[in-house]
């Protein structure tokens, strides 16, 4: 009996430890199936882009693995449940239908909060953000065989843009639309180089940014973005001005940079891309629970919404921090109470 209970405990423990791996494998398999179906049974799959597609499968594994590890900590797990609960609540959607789309646009799209930190950093981050969004929207579907360009006349100039084999639009390759369609990645590279260079120079010159900065965490992501963008632009330079000179070497260099960055993405600074939506969940949870506010038990100043205070106390109890009732006192009253206690009990009447 004792052995059985021990085994049972071990198996639960193992499931807990294996959960991130299982989540990663399931996500990677789902992506593989999506690639197979979206490329019409690999009919539209471009084998020249296979390394990118394989790297994206590893990326899907890494993101799901890292995300599951992240939300297994008590604070993140509670916020994950409350945030998604608030976002998907039918009652909230009916009561405030514009709240979620508005927060997604202002927080995740235009990143209003970064403007409150620094306007120049906001501008540089917007360049990187929209550059990466544009690049991701083009490259992922291309490498998965979802996105194809076909021409009924063989070599154009009439082209059809297809998604999952269905024609989306027809355009002339020699028109402005055609130029933009075929140079989207060059435009993305210019945006990213401008933004990443600003941040790189800031990291080398600004002592605020330099405090405690780590090469692998803070500088490698910027260098990776710049290397990917520069090698990508050099590919266009090679084909336009050098008649393809050095193209093979540049293509391998660009591919190596992209693949290594995709593999690094879940485990470094880039993981903030997956974490940032938690801000929307958090704010939505506070917003929809805004009816009741917890006052400081000493001075009566508001601390936070009652639901959020209860959520934090639950997190502290999960973590076995035995002083969760301190949440009911505002920061200033905590300091005053400690100072007064020192004055009356430790160094009397200083």
């Amino acid at each position: 009996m004792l052995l059985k209970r021990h085994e049972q405990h071990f198996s639960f423990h193992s499931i807990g430890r294996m959960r991130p791996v299982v989540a990663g494998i399931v996500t990677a398999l789902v992506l593989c199936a999506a690639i197979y179906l979206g490329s019409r049974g690999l009919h539209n799959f471009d084998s020249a882009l296979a390394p990118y597609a394989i790297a994206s499968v590893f990326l899907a594994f890494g993101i799901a693995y890292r995300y599951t590890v992240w939300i297994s900590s008590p604070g993140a797990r509670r916020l994950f449940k409350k945030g998604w609960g608030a976002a998907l609540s039918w009652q909230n959607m009916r009561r405030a239908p514009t709240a979620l789309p508005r927060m997604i646009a202002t927080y995740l799209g235009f990143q209003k909060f970064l403007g409150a930190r620094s306007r120049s950093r906001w501008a540089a981050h917007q360049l990187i953000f929209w550059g990466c969004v544009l690049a991701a929207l083009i490259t992922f579907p291309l490498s998965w065989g979802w996105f194809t360009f076909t021409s009924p006349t063989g070599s154009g100039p009439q082209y059809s843009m297809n998604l999952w084999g269905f024609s989306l639009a027809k355009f002339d390759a020699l028109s402005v639309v055609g130029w933009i369609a075929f140079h989207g990645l060059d435009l993305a590279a210019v945006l990213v180089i401008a933004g990443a260079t600003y941040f790189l120079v800031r990291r080398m010159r600004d002592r605020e940014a330099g405090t405690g900065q780590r090469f692998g965490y803070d500088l490698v992501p910027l260098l990776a973005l710049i290397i990917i963008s520069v090698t990508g632009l050099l590919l266009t330079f090679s084909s336009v001005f050098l008649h393809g000179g050095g193209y093979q070497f540049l293509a391998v260099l660009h591919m190596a940079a992209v693949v290594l960055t995709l593999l690094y993405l879940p485990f470094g600074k880039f993981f903030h891309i997956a974490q940032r939506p938690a801000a929307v969940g958090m704010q939505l949870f506070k917003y929809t629970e805004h009816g009741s506010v917890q006052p400081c038990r000493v001075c009566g100043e508001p601390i936070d919404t009652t639901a959020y205070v209860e959520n934090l106390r639950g997190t502290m109890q999960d973590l076995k921090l035995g002083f969760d009732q301190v949440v009911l006192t505002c920061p200033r009253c905590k300091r005053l109470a400690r100072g007064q206690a020192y004055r009356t009990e430790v160094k009397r009447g200083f």
Partner: protein
Amino acid sequence: MMGRTIVIDPGRCIGCQACVSACRECDSHRGRSMIHLDYLDQGNSVASSPTVCMHCEDPLAPCAQVCPAEAILVTPDGVVHDADKSRCIGCGNCVNACPMGVPKIDLAAKLQFKCNLCYDRTSYGLAPMCATVCPTGSIFYGTLDELRSERPGVEVASTFDIDGTILSTGVAVVVPGDRPRDLPLPGGAGEHPRVTGSPQPAGHLEPNADNVLGEPL
């Protein structure tokens, strides 16, 4: 307690705000003071008390433990850092969970701020800004031996009783020499002379600078 650390003697504080001004000059958080200077019994006494981050060691950094975004880093030297700017979501968990009332938050910027022991200075062997300018030695930076060479016989404590939980910290506080060495300092969390009580409807309470409630979007 860390090797070289801050030692606070509230009994020496004259409330001059030099530490507050100097903290604002620190390169890692320019223009924003991370130190709190509280007048303990305004109108009746001149007693004041400076509060820096105590860099909790056991339980290790409650602020970092409750952070849902893994934004607060504790380096091997025991320093509990301010929030990573790319990760902090401005939820305020750290602000309210901190038993010492240390972290601040900028709600518009969705960013927490707190004392990081002037890491840009202390990692190069320099004293934090507050300790450099304190005219009375209320905020001292150095080892315990260095403190005792200046103040023979001085005793310090680095444990607090927070509602029955013993919290040991990296930053120490001066205590009278005759106080038992293992007696924790009062955390003050149990003192509630005016209990105001239960949850209130929104709009009934005016927010102050410390709260993390913010505006509904």
